[in-house]
């Protein structure tokens, strides 16, 4: 049995198709995932992301504990700000990618992918053992509702008293919505301006209803996980399990910038990551690929070079709803990773030409 979200009844009433995602029954789509995708690019989409894991660390050594447990320098994040970071194993392999919110000088909230939430919570407990800090897994009680898209600020502004002008990207602020205390964050996974609302699960249906009403005049559509995947792919954002796995370090994924060697003390994976940073070896790196026509490279398909030799593997791919042509991410050797390089993908026996491009595929208009 999949765990239902606190919003399950709301989704059923909206006629959602459900999918099992990491043990949760979550909305895949409500109607057309292309319409939902387009709504996020041109108006806004309303997402239930309650499957995500939330782990709080509270105590005088919360910052030190996270500096040790994660690859980022979380002590440098100011209260009210957030940071994209990763948790690695001793060999530098990525256990999960995370958004960490610093809620106060002595309090952080770590947001983990649903599939890794238990692993991350366990690792944080273990790694925090020597520090004066409490680790609390709040995944079961907290709901997460996201409003993403160019009209999201108008919608959130209408229902919260929060000063959105001063709420920067990757910042958060306590606020009130429908009379309930929420954490309002300007974060997301779609490539658009957007907000995430963390709220007690018991109040989630009311928050959803109020957002839906406020969104009516702003083109807000409920949006499922199907379009979330194509949105993040267009935005060149990695998905754990596809672009990120324990077999790759942050450097392989082109995200070495999240590893902060300049922080005080040791951290889990430091030695291995230093070797990887300094390594003069042929490694594979994550690139973007674009094709023509309508057939999309998909997860697991082979990337081949001009001689027909397999050189890499597609991690994610789709016919881009916004751009109208196939896009994909793939791990390929450094030697063929320069933008403009001509490669091919074996699409079920047919070799389709693709070109290496710089990520992201899509950037929202400034």
């Amino acid at each position: 049995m999949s765990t239902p979200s606190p919003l399950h009844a709301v989704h059923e009433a909206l006629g959602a198709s459900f999918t099992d995602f990491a043990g949760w029954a979550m909305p895949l789509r409500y109607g057309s995932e292309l319409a939902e995708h387009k709504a996020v690019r041109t108006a806004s989409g309303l997402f239930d992301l309650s499957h995500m894991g939330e782990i709080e660390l509270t105590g005088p050594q919360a910052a030190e504990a996270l500096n040790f447990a994660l690859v980022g320098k979380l002590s440098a994040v100011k209260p009210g700000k957030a940071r994209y970071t990763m948790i690695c194993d001793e060999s530098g392999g990525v256990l999960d990618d995370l958004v960490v919110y610093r809620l106060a000088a002595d309090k952080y909230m770590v947001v983990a992918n649903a599939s890794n939430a238990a692993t991350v919570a366990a690792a944080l407990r273990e790694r925090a053992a020597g520090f004066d800090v409490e680790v609390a897994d709040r995944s079961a009680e907290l709901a997460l509702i996201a409003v993403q898209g160019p009209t999201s600020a108008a919608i959130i502004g209408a229902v919260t008293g929060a000063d959105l002008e001063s709420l920067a990207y990757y910042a958060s602020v306590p606020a009130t919505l429908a009379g309930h205390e929420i954490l309002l964050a300007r974060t997301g996974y779609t490539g658009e301006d957007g907000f995430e609302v963390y709220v007690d699960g018991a109040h989630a249906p009311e928050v959803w209803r109020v957002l839906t009403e406020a969104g009516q005049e702003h083109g807000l559509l409920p949006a499922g996980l199907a379009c979330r995947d194509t949105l993040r792919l267009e935005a060149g954002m990695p998905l754990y399990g596809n672009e990120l796995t324990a077999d790759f370090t942050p450097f392989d994924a082109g995200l070495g910038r999240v590893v902060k060697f300049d922080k005080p003390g040791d951290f889990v994976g430091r030695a291995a990551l230093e070797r990887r940073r300094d390594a003069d070896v042929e490694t594979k790196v994550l690139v973007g690929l674009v094709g023509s026509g309508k057939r999309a490279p998909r997860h697991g398909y082979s990337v081949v070079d001009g001689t027909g030799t397999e050189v890499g593997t597609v991690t994610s791919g789709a016919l881009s709803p916004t751009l109208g042509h196939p896009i994909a991410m793939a791990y390929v050797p450094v030697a063929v990773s320069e933008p403009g390089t001509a490669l091919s993908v074996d699409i079920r026996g047919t070799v389709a030409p693709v070109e290496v491009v710089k990520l992201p595929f899509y950037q929202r208009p400034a």
Partner: protein
Amino acid sequence: MSNPENLGYTAEHEWVDLAEGTATVGVTKYAADALGDVVYVQLPEVGAKITAGEPCGEIESTKSVSDLYAPADGEVVEINEAVVDSPELVNTDPFGDGWLFRFRTDGEPELLDAAAYAELTKEEG
């Protein structure tokens, strides 16, 4: 939407409208809903010989790709050009304008009736 009574069905979630040796083929509403928005269909060419149970085309949604299977031996006589240009017809009208191809067949394909097919999709949930 219920499955039309006048059509036959396959376990691969295709429908077949057989009339005087010519069969029209499409995918069911159940299949279209499971696929999500269809963005590309690759149909067999007119004149192509198709073999019962063998893949003869592809149907691709934003999330996945599925083979089309020939419901019987035969020769393709017509393909739906409208659905090639507008694959969303598979979602909006799977039993009508979203038909895929027609083929001439001598055989008598073994098909499920609407009730048996409804039972099958209920089992697959």
